[in-house]
């Protein structure tokens, strides 16, 4: 199982993953689950009523709009990077935070490398499953490498033009 790194208030740490991802053809284990979108749509209601915490994994070509009305009930949205260079999940993450006000965990899964850390953090990801073996310390250093940012995004960082006014 890949390491899960959570990053809260600029501080990254390795954590135990309380969720199990279940593919469409797997039996349901006990506990808190991350489901595919289609499985969530058929079985999510029952699982939530059992008092479990539930998350959904969206593939890069699945759009966050499909979850719009379910988000308040979800604990995690995992967004997939089928490869390093596929940037669709950045838009999904940003919309989750900015447009839908999602307060749960937004997790980066798939081909997730530390070179993306800063970008991921800025569009609203707060949990990461690095595919490059990064430690929490390495991840934090990469995510905060740039001291300034040029534009608004889904994080609270003030762009340079606001720093200049101050």
């Amino acid at each position, binding site marked *: 199982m890949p390491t899960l790194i959570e990053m809260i208030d600029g501080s990254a740490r390795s954590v135990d993953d309380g969720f199990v991802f279940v593919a469409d053809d797997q039996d349901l284990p006990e506990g808190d689950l991350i489901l595919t979108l289609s499985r969530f749509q058929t079985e999510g209601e029952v699982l939530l009523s059992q008092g479990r915490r539930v998350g959904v994994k969206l593939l890069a070509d699945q759009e966050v709009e499909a979850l719009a009305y379910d988000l308040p009930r979800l604990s995690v949205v995992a967004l997939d990077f089928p490869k390093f260079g*596929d*940037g669709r999940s950045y*838009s999904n993450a940003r919309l989750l935070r900015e447009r839908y006000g999602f307060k749960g965990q937004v997790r980066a899964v798939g081909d997730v490398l530390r070179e993306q850390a800063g970008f991921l953090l800025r569009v609203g990801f707060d949990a990461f499953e690095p595919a490059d073996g990064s430690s929490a310390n390495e991840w934090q250093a990469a995510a905060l490498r*740039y001291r300034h940012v*040029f534009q*608004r995004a889904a994080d609270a960082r003030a762009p340079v*033009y606001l720093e*200049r006014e101050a």
Partner: protein
Amino acid sequence: MYQYDTLDKAMVADRAAEFRGQVARRLSGELTEDQFKPLRLMNGLYLQLHAYMLRVAIPYGSLNPTQMRKLAWIGRTYDKGYGHFTTRTNLQFHWIKLRDTPDILDHLAEVDMHAIQTSGNCIRNVTADPYAGATAEEVDDPRVWAEVLRQWSTFHPEFSFLPRKFKFAITASPKDRTAARVHDIGLVMRRGRDGALGFEVIVGGGMGRTPYVGPTIREFLPVDQLLSYVEAILRVYNRHGRRDNKYKARIKILVAALGTEEFTRQVDAEWAKIGAEINLPDAEVARIRAAFAIVDFETLPSRSETFEAAKAASPALARFARNNLKPHKRPGYAIVEISLKGIGETPGDATSDQMEVVADLGERYGHRDIRVTHEQNLVLPHVKLDDVPAVWAALRDAGIATPNINLVSDIIACPGLDYCALANARAISIAQLIADKFRDPDRAENVGELKIKISGCINACGHHHVGHIGILGVDKKGEEFYQLTLGGSGAEDASLGAMLGPALPYDRVAGAVDTLVEVYLRERQPGERFLDTFRRAGVAPFKEAVYADAH
């Protein structure tokens, strides 16, 4: 000119430090070439046929003498004493060693330069009218908005992994010197009926395998809403652009597949949901604008007796003035174009010595302002007419006073098979052979404006689709052949060239261009450029002449 402040400098320094770490990991073997490739490609470092190539960003083609001297020094220290100015108004060093690149980035950072976003599937260097701030034609200074876009697009967290690279061009003049209509986004500034400034927004133009002149999706976008609107365009593209085939991944393919109307509807729907807080505050726009408004022009008569006398005494200067000087908005000043298309030279190349000469001239006579054009020439935008003779003499001594701006030998050519791993055929030597045919400057001037553009492969880095005469290198069973197109234009009258006929072998191309020009000279009516004659007369007379001996 815009000056980097401590915040801009910190961004560049942080990037250089990050790349130093990545190169160290590569050199130690911690990273394989496969893993390193996407990282170096985020820093303008390509592996070409013979060596690494480093592409240095020159935002909107604007640089000061200190920066130009640094480029010259890097060329001399780490390359073979020259650099290559590109159609993206960047500078490439073609003979770089990987282990030197961290030091080179540090040297660049000393003068506020970098290689950020000169490669990769991100928003590339924004290009702007090279005459910005100098021409009387413009309704505003497009560099202000190019700088706004530079800042917004730098390390954009959502748009750094697009389906494909993404290029903006911006002009504020009716005469388009940026090829705005063949860019991913072209912005043409104009004033609305009430006098307010806005942009015509053109999306989905491009060259490559599937060329398009981009459609206008918004006739008038108020300037203060620029960032929210382009963010909407980029988001629609990032989410819906094709990622399964790199040759169908540019935004032009999405626009064409959806149709202009549906694409526009999607952008407008997204735009309606984006908050206005994305737009840049007026105070920041004002700060940027102030940085471009500082040229302390003198009040001069519009006629310079010194200049007139020098021209009368020197036909060569007079010829240079006819072709390379453009009108300036201030009386007594001129825009001076410096051709990097010397006969027999490589288009866009400048030696370190030449760069230093241009830097000195910019320092002494040019208000410390130097521009790079997308046609791979340099510009001193603010030169007093009184000083033109001295500027010309210095350029002549450096071998860069070729009086051929917009003429037949002012050719765009990609690096082609001499450097590039993608090329099918040589482009540079074709340009040299053509230029040699028109070595006689009287004949070249008689022919007038004629834009020849040469690409060594279908990726069209040499912009052949929009050449008045376009030349595309193709491989036929291991031999170099060239497909000619006529009637393209990248300017305000943008159009794509039409095929002339079967591809020609290497040694027939320059002769065919000569024939095309002879047909034009025979057919032209008063005031017609080559392009106008072609548009009026059609392909038939040209085709007949070039292929006559095949019948």
